[in-house]
């Protein structure tokens, strides 16, 4: 065997796919970890082992921004139309109603720009997010068109209409209902 061939063989042994051995091992560890961790995180499996894996990788996923969920309209899509309004009580005793942008009332281009409000309203209505209700009410009170009139109280009202599945396979809408789900007393510092 010539010297060049021996050198070539030595180089091949040290390198895998053009990578140094430690690089090859590191990349493989990275790949295996991420494939398993992302699968455990995303797939709706409630096996105790998977749940343990999920909680083990949680700090890393939350930190790095790799958290993800692909349950698009599932397992159960929304079964009601709902929107939120805010009733504002002013110092002089008058009231006004302010509505979050409603997609069904917007133009096509506005829908593109304001779609985040649809998602935000969905988030507000989840009971698990009740901690953000004071922030939402405070933000409404601070809106330029309302702030000037010295708001004293903000009531957040949800209005909803269930989508009813009839026996013949058709769908109808139930009458609209409403419920005040949060009351907020505006503090002077909120308006500064």
């Amino acid at each position: 065997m010539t010297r060049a061939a021996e050198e070539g063989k030595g180089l091949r042994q040290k390198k895998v796919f053009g990578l140094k051995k430690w690089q090859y091992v590191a990349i493989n560890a990275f790949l295996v970890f991420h494939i398993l961790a992302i699968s455990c995180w995303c797939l709706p499996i409630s096996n105790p082992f998977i749940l343990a894996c999920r909680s083990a990788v949680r700090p890393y996923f939350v930190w790095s921004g790799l958290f993800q969920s692909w349950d698009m309209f599932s397992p159960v899509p929304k079964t009601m139309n709902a929107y939120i309004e805010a009733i504002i009580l002013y110092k002089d005793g008058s009231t006004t109603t302010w509505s979050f942008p409603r997609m069904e009332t917007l133009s096509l281009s506005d829908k593109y720009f304001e779609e985040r409000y649809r998602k935000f309203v969905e988030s507000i209505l989840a009971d698990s997010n009740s901690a953000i209700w004071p922030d939402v009410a405070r933000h409404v009170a601070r809106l330029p068109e309302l702030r000037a009139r010295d708001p004293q109280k903000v009531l957040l009202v949800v209005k909803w209409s269930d989508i009813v599945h009839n026996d013949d396979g058709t769908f109808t809408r139930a009458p609209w209902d409403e419920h005040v789900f949060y009351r907020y007393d505006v503090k002077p510092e909120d308006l500064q």
Partner: protein
Amino acid sequence: MRTKSFFEAWNTFFFAEESPIPLGLFRIIYGVMVIATLTLLRPDWMAWYGPHAWVSLPSMQAVEPGTRLNVFAFISQSDFWVHALFWFSLASAACLSIGLLTRLNCLIVFLCLTSIDQRNLFILHGGDTFLRVAGFFLIFAPAGAALSVDRLIRIWRGKDGAEIRPRRPWAQRMIQFELALLYFAGFCSKVEGVPWVQGTALSYMLNLDELQRFPVPSWFLHPAVLKLVTWFAMALEFCLGVLIWVKEFRYYLLAIGLVFHLCLEYSLNIPMFQWDVLSAYVLFIDAADLERAWNWIRSRSQRFWAFGTRTNGKAH
């Protein structure tokens, strides 16, 4: 023997060198998607992320605790700095799209996107999540190896030849894996839902006023059709999650997936999600086929311009 063939398949899949052209094209589209996302948010940058946003930074941190990669936690909470972060993100996404300082801009875009997402988790849709996780793996990919200013600079400096050198696709495979998992996880979640199994899920969705964009044809609203389409959507998600890896099925599935997402874009108001997901389809196309398509477009456009020049010449 089986173990050996598994490792061989693994190595070929992740490490056998391939043309980076699909990745370069994905990088361009990805940058455009990030720019579009940030531009659509533009009127509400302050409302969602400013010092007096709908949800304050301390509230966000209280509701979703944990140490997070979030630039907003380090910058001063003022309009100026929030604006600066967004303009910086936009500039970086533009540089990423053209492939200038690609690796650095991959990192910056990922950091900015993650921070923007972490600052307000209540307004995110699947498209934002896909951009974020794809951006993470793009950092490790040779995204500037083709169709980039970086490559032009390397050629100019004599460090790169006219031929595009093949690269190891392991990071590209992870973005492909994310896309396939998006569909497969969606399928698994739908299988657990009674309305999806019964075939009524789409009917509920089309009755949601907030989701409606353009009117759908009346025949489509027949309960039997909606039931079939609901099941078809589930079956397609399964196929796009699993069978996309089988080369013989790939292009058919990509074509059906493209039509499916365009139909969703037409009928449902979920801005950017369809485009964000479709952007990664290019990663599943062979570089040779992309080159063939490019040559076809080029020859057509050359013929078109030559025809235009001749017609103008005659008119004069």
